[in-house]
């Protein structure tokens, strides 16, 4: 039946190909031409130099990298725990999955605000800590004076918001591990930890790799959570890109920042592909 309608699949694909060419590929290329242009349209490194010389460039780059490095391991530890809990087939399995998946639909901005209500001076954390007598007076958690505290707060908010996506990928991966493998491990008297290390983790490698790549790319774009929780107290790359695009109205420097995020994403993707090869899946 496929021979009869040889052109049909191409006709069905065509609209999506055209759309992606126009609204995905073209702007992707355009971002680089913009970055290599000055505001007057002349080609050169002026905009890149302007980005590198920008007062907040170094802070933005370092903070973004610090956030990625801190948040990814925490998210994977949390996601793995959630996935193992769900895989343990507790009562109300569907309910646990639903609860852990809740943040999937929550936006960066909403998540940031949720944690503002906790960390603000007259917020929930200070209230509870004073209520149980740990604090005598409220602590100012969100202050530009203590950037490390701000980074910690953003990490917690991001761990809360964006762990679910990893959890879902891992749960799907776990479900594809044949029961017999774990039962065999049981027969040989493996402990839970041995089962996780020797059976689950190796078989979960492809899922882990995909989740790592996806989540890291997203983490480099961290934006609204930082603005909501840290205001001008922290600079990150995406919020510099936005500042140059809207407040300063210089699309070229903004594109340079966006291009930098793209390069970091691609480098991290290649890194994960090289460091976590999934080809030789046969047990060593």
């Amino acid at each position, binding site marked *: 039946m496929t021979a009869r309608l040889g052109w049909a699949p191409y006709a069905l*694909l065509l609209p999506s190909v055209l759309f992606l060419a126009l609204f995905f590929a073209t702007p992707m290329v355009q971002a680089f031409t913009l970055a290599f242009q000055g505001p007057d349209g002349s080609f050169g490194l002026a905009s890149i130099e302007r980005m590198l010389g920008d007062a907040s460039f170094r802070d933005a780059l370092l903070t973004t990298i610090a956030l990625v490095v801190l948040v990814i391991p925490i998210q994977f530890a949390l996601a793995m725990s959630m996935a193992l*809990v769900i895989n343990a087939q507790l009562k109300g399995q569907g309910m646990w999955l639903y609860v852990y998946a809740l943040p999937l639909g929550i936006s960066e901005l909403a998540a940031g605000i949720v944690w503002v209500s906790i960390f603000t001076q*007259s917020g929930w954390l200070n209230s509870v800590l004073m209520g149980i007598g740990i604090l005598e007076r409220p602590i100012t958690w969100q202050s530009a004076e203590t950037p490390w505290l701000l980074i910690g707060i953003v990490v917690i908010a991001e761990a809360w918001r964006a762990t679910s996506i990893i959890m879902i990928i891992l749960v799907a991966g776990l479900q594809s591990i044949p029961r017999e493998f774990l039962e065999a491990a049981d027969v040989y008297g493996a402990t839970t930890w041995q089962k996780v290390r020797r059976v689950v983790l190796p078989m979960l490698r492809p899922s882990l790799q995909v989740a790592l790549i996806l989540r890291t790319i997203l983490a480099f774009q961290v*934006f*609204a959570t930082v603005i909501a929780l840290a205001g001008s107290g922290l600079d990150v790359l995406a919020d510099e890109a936005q500042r140059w695009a809207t407040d300063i109205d210089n699309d070229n420097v903004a594109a340079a920042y966006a291009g930098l995020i793209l390069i970091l994403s691609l480098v991290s993707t290649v890194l994960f592909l090289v460091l976590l090869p999934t080809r030789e899946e046969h047990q060593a």
Partner: protein
Amino acid sequence: MTAARHDVPMPRRRAGRERLIGRGLIYLAAVLLALFILVPIYLIAVSAFTPRENAFDFPKSVIPQAVSVDTILFFINASGVLDAFWRSVIVALITLALSLLIGAPAGYAIARYAFRGRNGYRLVVLATRAFPIVILAIPLAVTYRVWGIDDTVIGVALMHTALALPFTVLITSSVFVSVPRELEEAAQTLGCNPLQAFLRVSLPLALPGLAAAAIFTWVLSWNDVFAAVILTLRNPTLPAKILTALTQSPIYFQFAAGFVMLVPSLVVIFFIRRYLLGLWGRVVK
């Protein structure tokens, strides 16, 4: 109470009591993780339903003292918020319609036909995910000014469609794969043409999955703030409006804003909970 697992006959090598303790620890972990997710949602709800004059009370009581919709009404009636809300709804609806209209046929094609270039196409669609979305908005803002659709609902919706399209293609293809092609072929042998076979047989069966894909697209658009802030100025979507208002707005405005943005997400996840694993989980081949 945990002894009643009968689905998997596990070899019982260790003492029952040890198993029971292990089971208990897993339940403890499950509850702690659930609290980590749920407590902040509860707290923002309490914050949003606290009347404005109590917003700065300290220390706060975790059990709400005075519950009112005063703060939420203040937020909704703040200048520009309602307009921004409707704009967000319209942008999300256009995004949903466009990405299904463009993406579902492609998803159907990869699910149903074996053709040259199929794997290449799949690979390109998967690869779009390796590119940060942040990079699209800035050049598009420049292009939109040329096209005269800068600061418009349609401009934002087109960008959101570019964002959602790869997901829609992959999700709809997995939906159509799960609808047995034999049914469609049977319909054709009974005299339907391919289009009729699709409309009368496959489409109704695929509908729940397609609805889940649509809802997912809607969330993606509803939640985007970066692209919206770059692409709009006087006509912001709700998240863009809230983000630009953050620094000048009182904290109770933020609480209500956060809560109002959060609620649709919770509802949506509830409705597509059965599809979650299929939607996001199948990214590994």
